[in-house]
């Protein structure tokens, strides 16, 4: 319990640190800002023009007075602009922009003629990225804004988006692994190794389920067609695998390059775990040879089934937002669950059928032989 608690704290800290360091919050050309004088509990919301051309933020004098600012005795500074030099009162305020609290200095000027009673300048825009084509993407408390634009601009943007997606994906791997372990030790389903279902799940996450499934079947089928030919050549196993990898890549490239018109969006080939698929083809074949086609199909089917069950869980809204908020904890939970499943020593669900003959009747147990 303590470990989980520690993980929550750790991951929360990790996430906020990440917020400050590398994540850019997207805002539009005009955003609502909460403004209050430092040291006062009173704060008012004001619509602000976002202006990366301005250094200081500034607020309208009437708005400043409504906040209780004493303009008569305020410090003044000289502001240079395209209109020349101007002396303006300067006040210490606390701003809240898109969930970020900023203690800063703003200048006060008459903005009656302007569209916005407030201007948000460069000094207070650190950590934000501005999309001038949109507005009202956020609320001062950090929630999404009122505009329809806000729906597409969820959270962070740009290159940092891909990094965060990669992190989210990474954090789900231990969770998928735990599911595979659970399915094996609690239920008793056998898959082609632990990695195949995990990597398939990731591939599904990246290219979508239906397309991923289609790719998988196409690759497996072409691999199985070429496998008997490869066997006849008596290649060493490494060479056979290398040829299979080449084949898998070729199939993906052909789909992506030439069949894209039939398959909208192409194959998403790059996301597929090529080497693992080649190994799966090889193991399918070995399974077939040493056991039977039925066993090979069954194992393959269960591998797919595990990935298909794991996929919707992992991409579901609650899991995704949870992973986003506390990636460290999700990873840790995956590890702990695997530990827990691994420690289970009881019968697996499917063994209740498998060992039916062994448990068929209460049997006599010789506890002791009497020396009479």
């Amino acid at each position, binding site marked *: 319990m303590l470990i989980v608690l520690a993980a929550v704290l750790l991951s929360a800290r990790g996430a906020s640190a990440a917020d400050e360091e590398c994540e850019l919050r997207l805002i539009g050309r005009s955003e609502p800002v909460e403004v209050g004088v430092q040291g006062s509990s009173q704060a008012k919301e004001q619509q602000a023009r976002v202006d990366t051309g301005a250094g200081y933020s500034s607020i309208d004098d009437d708005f400043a007075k409504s906040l209780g600012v004493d303009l008569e005795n305020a410090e003044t500074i000289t502001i240079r602009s395209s209109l020349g030099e101007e002396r303006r009162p300067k006040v210490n305020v606390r701003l809240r922009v898109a969930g970020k609290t900023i203690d800063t200095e703003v200048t006060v000027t008459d903005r009656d003629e302007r569209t916005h009673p407030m201007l948000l300048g460069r000094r207070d825009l650190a950590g934000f990225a501005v999309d001038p084509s949109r507005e009202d993407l956020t609320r001062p408390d950090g929630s999404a804004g009122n505009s329809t634009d806000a729906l597409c601009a969820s959270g962070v943007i740009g290159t940092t988006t891909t990094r965060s997606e990669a992190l989210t994906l990474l954090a789900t791997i231990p969770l998928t692994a735990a599911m595979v372990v659970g399915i094996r*030790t609690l239920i*008793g389903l056998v898959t082609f190794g632990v990695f195949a279902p995990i990597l398939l799940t990731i591939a599904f996450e990246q290219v979508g389920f239906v397309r991923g499934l289609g790719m998988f079947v196409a690759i497996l089928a072409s691999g199985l067609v070429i496998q008997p030919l490869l066997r006849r050549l*008596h290649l*060493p*196993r*490494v060479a056979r695998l290398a040829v299979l990898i080449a084949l898998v890549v070729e199939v993906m490239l052909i789909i992506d390059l030439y069949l894209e018109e039939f398959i909208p969006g192409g194959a998403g080939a790059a996301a597929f775990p090529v080497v693992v698929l080649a190994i799966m083809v090889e193991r399918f074949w070995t399974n077939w040879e*040493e*056991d*039977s086609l039925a*066993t090979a199909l069954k194992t393959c089917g269960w591998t797919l089934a595990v990935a298909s069950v794991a996929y919707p869980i992992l991409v579901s809204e609650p899991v995704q937002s949870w992973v986003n908020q506390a990636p460290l904890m999700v990873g840790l939970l995956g590890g702990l669950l695997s530990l827990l499943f691994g420690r*289970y*020593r*009881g*019968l*697996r669900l499917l*063994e*209740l059928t*498998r*060992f*039916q*003959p*062994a*448990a*068929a*009747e*209460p*049997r*006599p*147990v*010789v*506890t*002791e*032989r*009497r020396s009479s």
Partner: protein
Amino acid sequence: MMHFTADRWSGVLGMNARNLYVERENTLEAIRLVNNKHLTKTALQKANVPVAPTLALVRDRRELASIEWQALPDSWVVKPNRGRQGAGVLLVAGRDSSGWCSASGRHLDQIEVEQQIREILEGEVSSGIADRDDAIMEPLIVPHEALKEVVPVGLPDIRIISYHDMPVMAMLRLPTRASGGRANLHQGGIGAGVDLATGKVFRAMMSGQPVTHHPDTDAPLIGLQVPDWDRVVDAASRSGSATGLVYAGADIVVDQDRGTVVLQVNARPGLEIQNVNGMGLADRLERVAAASSTPA
């Protein structure tokens, strides 16, 4: 003194529990040893456990080229030293005018035989990701006539699970035509529960169903006496300590001329033996554990 367990499932050993036995009791050295047939044979011989003699240990192509084929007996077998589940095993049943003939009666060229051995040497049929292996040549085992009457094709073998050198459960595996001469239970072979005390078959299963007679020969199975039983059990009980395995599954055959021969020892023997015997392993193992922790 007899009593009945209330819960019919409590005696059944599941895969998770078996893995615990294997991980807790069997050392890595012992597991490594039994994955190597040649080292296993040496260790068994040292403990006076009967094994098949080695005709040749082929370690590279040079040694393959220097095999004196004329000096070999008429029937022999070649297998990978670190093979998996019977893969790469070649059974040679006799000579013909231009080479050899396989156990199934097929003609084998000398070239074919050497190709097979080369594949073994290159690790093609070995477990894991080995890139080389040794090939072991041994005389072909001829099943004891008492078993040959029952089984038309293939080699019947006896699997005995022992724990702390105590045999706990035994089964006889009989190939059928349907199983292609292989003694694999899930491929149509027959598994027969053998009473440890007498060596007599008391129950037989084929494809998950109880059977009383062999489907190919119609020979009765129930009451069938495994030949040389005392020595079979003795060999099984010594295989564990000889290899260092605490939880062990010995695969034993009874040869027409040599009698009892241990073919291999498994560090993680399967659990199907419970279905064949119609009873679980778990409480037998627990009783052995209790007995071995409180010495008499």
